[in-house]
């Protein structure tokens, strides 16, 4: 369950404040598939980042799974990100010099699990994301679609309840988009909360979308 009330994120440029998002209030139920829709600069990525805990709001309240994340100190916010959120970035943000396997295992390192447990979880995620065959390949050598599947496996490895995706299809061809949508559908069936920020119209045609949130100039339109 995600609760957002009067959320603002602004940047101070000299004496002026530039609002990325302004006075946003919304709620997302567990297991929902939600779409943040809007043009570039509408504030959807900022809103997504705040929900994922990689950015902090300037004011307002955000609670995720009953945790008031806007007030959490770094140590707790980091643990929250690690356990509750799986992030798929627009540019994948892989550790380019490491293998797919090591990239996927990265979120588990602070968890202090055994090597055996890590191995079990990584292999399971690689299988769901359909990238097991590239486990030992260096991330920088992968194609766009493979990089995205690696990013998906990484987002799944901690068994996070919320998966957030930022412009996930922006760098993919049609075939890879279909593969990606299939994976998202599977995850939705596993009762994961999925939030996608995109301006790609393909998502609006999906029949399993629960909520479409339209943003314009940082303000919630509908």
């Amino acid at each position, binding site marked *: 369950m995600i609760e957002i009330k009067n959320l603002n994120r602004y940047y101070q440029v000299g004496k002026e404040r530039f609002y990325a998002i302004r006075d946003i209030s919304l709620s997302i139920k567990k297991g929902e598939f939600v779409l943040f829709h809007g043009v570039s600069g509408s504030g959807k990525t900022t809103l997504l*980042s705040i929900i*994922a805990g*990689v*950015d*902090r709001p300037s004011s307002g309240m955000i609670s995720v799974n009953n945790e008031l994340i806007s007030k959490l100190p*770094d*140590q707790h916010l*980091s*643990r*929250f*990100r*690690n*356990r509750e*959120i799986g*992030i798929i*970035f627009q540019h994948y*943000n*892989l*550790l*380019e*010099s*490491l293998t797919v396997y*090591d990239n996927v*295992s*990265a*979120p*588990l*390192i*602070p968890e*202090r*699990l*055994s*090597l055996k447990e*890590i191995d079990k979880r990584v292999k399971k995620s690689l299988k769901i994301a359909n990238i097991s065959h590239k486990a030992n390949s*260096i991330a920088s050598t992968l194609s766009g679609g493979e990089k995205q599947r690696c990013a998906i496996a*990484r987002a799944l490895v*901690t068994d996070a309840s919320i998966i957030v995706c930022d412009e996930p299809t922006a760098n993919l061809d049609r075939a890879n988009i279909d593969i990606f949508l299939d994976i998202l559908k599977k995850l939705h069936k596993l009762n994961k909360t999925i939030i996608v920020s995109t301006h790609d119209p393909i998502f609006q045609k999906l029949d399993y979308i629960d909520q479409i949130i339209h943003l314009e100039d940082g303000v919630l339109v509908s």
Partner: protein
Amino acid sequence: MNSPFFRFLLLSFYSEKAKQITVIIFSIIIIFILSSVLFLSTSMHYSITEALKYQPDFIVQKMAGDRRVNISERVTDELIEIPSIAKVTPRVYGRYFLKPLGKSFLVVGVDFFDVQSHRGLEKIIDNMDLNKFFKRRDNMLVGEGVDRFMREHHYDNNMTFFTPKGKAITLHKFATLPKNSELVSSDMVIVPIDLAKKILGIKRREVSDFAFNVPNILEWEIVTIKVSALDYDLRVINKKESYKAYAEFFDFKGGFFLSIFLIVLISFSLILYQRYSQLYSTERRNIGVLRALGWSIKDTLKLKFFEALLVVFISYTIGVSLAYIFVYIFHAPILKNIFLGSSNIMVEPTFVPVIDIFLLSSIFLLYAIPFIASVIIPVWRISTTNPKEAMR
């Protein structure tokens, strides 16, 4: 490697091997230069201190116009009269100039039957058969530098000295003094006292100076006063003053050492500053990614700290080992000239390996603390910003 953290650390370290190797090579060069200079100066300091241990407590010289002149042997009797003075030894030595070559040797006359008087020499000539030495009246012991000089100038084993009156005395090289004493004995020619007097033109009843010991250090001051009172032109030097003279000489040489040291430190600081001010964009992004994946500030700092520690450990071990080999096995070619360049006969000493834990720790700390700080501070700055900002 059972710990996932250390496994990840090694993988991430290895995956950036090109960058890490560059840093390690640079660090090895810095540690190597620092360690070589410090090893060299410590070893020389040790050798000089060791040599001074065998110096007599006091030396009495006769002065004329601020210049040392030979002194009558009769002064011995007056010195012996003074209570507290344990033993008086007349010494004969002086410089013998080879004018055409612009070189000089230190000719030292030794009473070989009074070995206690020459504690330093006794140590130097420890393994020599003195019975054989006295089978010939014209035998001499020479330092490494003199030996080299003789070989280079085709003297073979005999060298002719001329007395001030022009009389030729040909001496036979009996043996060369041990290499490990070269720092103090390189240009030495050791001969029996009478022979030294002839070569140096010292009268039969005169000597160069006197050496004596005063076992009770509390009496040194009063003994100095008493000896000075014997005659207006006597100069009394005690061991502490010799230490001071050597220390001053060493400090002068230390200036060069300090210059090298400062140059290395300044270049090191500049590179650290560069690293501090502009952390590689990839590294920045990677820290942001790890933070976004749920690594806390503490986790990222821990990773980068151990990564830096690994670089420090590898660089330190290799740098110090190479410096050890360079100084103690290859005798510090080029670098030693800074310290020994002023000798009229080139000294090629064997540096005594001195392993000083304080010195090794100093090198480690001088390098490790700034290096780790230059890694950790920017990582901390990036880690404390939003992961979103760091990934840009």
